[in-house]
């Protein structure tokens, strides 16, 4: 069966510090991978998606970047965090254009 791992679960970072969130998928090959952000009590905003190694599509111009160094690994990064980067970050995968399977999320607080 397929599983998705996302870590850390909680992160508190000072403004201006770097960020690296990692997501890995097991049990499937060539998945589509996604990063979403969710503000408290709000919907999910698509940040990045990837259909293959090294292929990244950015949906929203911002202080974040994404990379896919391996088939089942997706990384969300920032060189300098802003207060507005706080939120609940969710990684997800799908087979083609099908339903998404989400990780457990990372609650990021930038102080």
């Amino acid at each position, binding site marked *: 069966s397929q599983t998705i791992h996302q870590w850390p679960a909680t992160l508190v970072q000072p403004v201006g510090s770097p960020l690296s969130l990692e997501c890995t998928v097991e049990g499937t090959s060539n998945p589509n991978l996604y990063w979403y952000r969710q503000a408290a009590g709000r*919907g*999910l905003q*698509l940040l990045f998606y990837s*259909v293959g190694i090294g292929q990244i599509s950015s949906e929203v111009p911002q202080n974040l970047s994404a990379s896919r160094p391996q088939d089942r690994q997706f990384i969300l990064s920032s060189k300098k965090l802003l207060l507005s980067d706080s939120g609940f970050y969710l990684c997800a995968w799908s087979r083609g*254009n*099908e339903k998404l399977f*989400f990780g*457990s*999320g990372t609650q990021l607080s930038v102080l």
Partner: protein
Amino acid sequence: GESVGLHLPTLSVQEGDNSIINCAYSNSASDYFIWYKQESGKGPQFIIDIRSNMDKRQGQRVTVLLNKTVKHLSLQIAATQPGDSAVYFCAESGTGGFKTIFGAGTRLFVKA
């Protein structure tokens, strides 16, 4: 651009009653719709999906209805239970390739 919206941000129902959560979409070219359930502090979980060539699909205690004429989607939960309390999102996919666009969500409260 495309958007998927919800009519009601909060819905409160009595345990055992049926729940209906509504959703509107704006892109008439959308061809795949999904409902997700999100419990507090967790990632959304898939509930049920429907493609545009159907107008109804049933699962275990859940039914999704699609009205393409008025671009409306609904999720019906039969015999609502306390464990159904969560935020429910409708989502649209199929347009523009591999993006899934989520609505704002409806919080369902189940009163015992």
